[in-house]
Each structure stands twice: as structure tokens, then as C-alpha cells.
């Protein structure tokens, strides 16, 4: 009788753990598919300065300017040039990329380090 109860508890634990794992995996997949990568301009620099995107798939990124003056999100390799006013968030459409690295920078603040998008 005691052994049967212990088996039942183990079974419940396995079911719960499996369910939890499924929820975690599912939610992270949904996040990766649906939520565009976000870049923030904070304290005079981009955050993050590097992130990955899937190659061969069009995607969007959002750029939020949390600073006190306008920035210009620009990338020669991605052919994008967008002004972002303080407090504004913009969405940038990007085409399918070949695997590789694509740099972006703030054309209004050249002294700031470039960021890198890696398509893989």
C-alpha cells in the first residue's frame, strides 16, 4: 500500500515536471517567433549591442530611444536609416538576411560603439 502511494506521488511529480517543461519550451518558442528583438538607446549607448536573428527570414526590430535627444538608427549593410525622437519607439522592417554580421550605429553620435546583428 505504502509502495503504491509512493509510485503515485512519483508519477504526479513526473507529470507536473513534464507539463512545466512543455509550458516553458512553448512560451519561449512563441516569444522568439512573435516578439521582435528590441534595441534600446539608454545612457548614450545601444542595449543590447549584439543579438542574433534567424537567417533567411524577414523580421522586424523595435528601437526605443530612452535618451534625452534624437538618435538616428542607421545601418549601411541593412539599408536602414531612421530618426528616433526621445521617448519614441519605432519598428524597423528588415528583409531576409544571408548568414553573417550586420552593423548598426547612431549617425548622430559617431563616438558610440557600433552594434551587431548576427543572422544565423
Amino acid at each position: 500500500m505504502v509502495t503504491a502511494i509512493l509510485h503515485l506521488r512519483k508519477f504526479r511529480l513526473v507529470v507536473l515536471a513534464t507539463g512545466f517543461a512543455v509550458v516553458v519550451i512553448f512560451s519561449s518558442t512563441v516569444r522568439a517567433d512573435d516578439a521582435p528583438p528590441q534595441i534600446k538607446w539608454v545612457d548614450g549607448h545601444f542595449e543590447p549591442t549584439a543579438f542574433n536573428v534567424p537567417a533567411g527570414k524577414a523580421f522586424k526590430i523595435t528601437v526605443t530611444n530612452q535618451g534625452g535627444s534624437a538618435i538616428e538608427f542607421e545601418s549601411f549593410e541593412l539599408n536602414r536609416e531612421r530618426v528616433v525622437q526621445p521617448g519614441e519607439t519605432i519598428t524597423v522592417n528588415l528583409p531576409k538576411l544571408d548568414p553573417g554580421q550586420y552593423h548598426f550605429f547612431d549617425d548622430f553620435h559617431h563616438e558610440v560603439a557600433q552594434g551587431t546583428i548576427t543572422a544565423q
Partner: protein
Amino acid sequence: MAAGAVVCVLIQLVPMSIKNPPISEDVAAPPQVEAILRRSCYDCHSNQTQWPWYAHVAPVSWLMIRDVNRGREHINFSTWDKYADDPETVIRKLRNIDKVMQNGSMPLWYYLPEHSIARLSDADRQALEDWVVQSIESEGKR
């Protein structure tokens, strides 16, 4: 003197490419505007650069290649389709064209003595401004 001549000869051996990249899609503009762009802008802002003979002679070639590469990075009329899926980028490029035409910073002053045909008249500037305004309006509706 002799050392200078040797250096001049040796720098010609530094490999430099002045091959124009392929055109993916030229900017769409009315014939009059297209003619102005080709005459005044295309040497540095397209993949249809007309390289003069001295573009093959170092160190002039180095400076020309640098300027053309920078020009293409900022705006390239031969790959306009690459901006097209982000209308706000197209609008930004158009505003930049208008700005540099109106403030006279383009064409570059040192380009003009050898390319007087690139000089913009008041009528050219007006035609470009009208085109920019119309294009921004149509991009805004997309």
C-alpha cells in the same frame, strides 16, 4: 626626386578595384529628375559610376574609391529597392537628398571643376524639391 618617382611607380602596384557593383533597381523618377540625378549624383551615389582615366592612377584612385564607397553607403540610387520595404527609410533618404541639394553641400565642391555638367541650376533644385515632396507624400500613403 628619384625616390619620389619610384614611390609613384610602386603605389600603382597596390591592387584597387574600380569595378561597379550590379544594379538591383534604379530609383523611379520622372525623366527630368532622373536626368538631373544621373548628371549630378550618380558618379558617387550609384553603381553606374563613370570612372575617368585618372581613377586608375594612385593615389587619386584611392581618394576617388573612398569617396564613391562612402557615397554609395549613404545613398545608392542603383539599389533603391533595398530601402523600399521600409517606407520611413525611403522618406529619410529623400529628405537627405533635399537637404544637401538646398544647402549646396552636394555635389561636392571638389568634384565640380572636373564635372561642371553636374552643377545644379535653380531650376534643377526646384525640380528635385518638387519630386522629393511628391515622393514623400506617396511614401507616407503606403
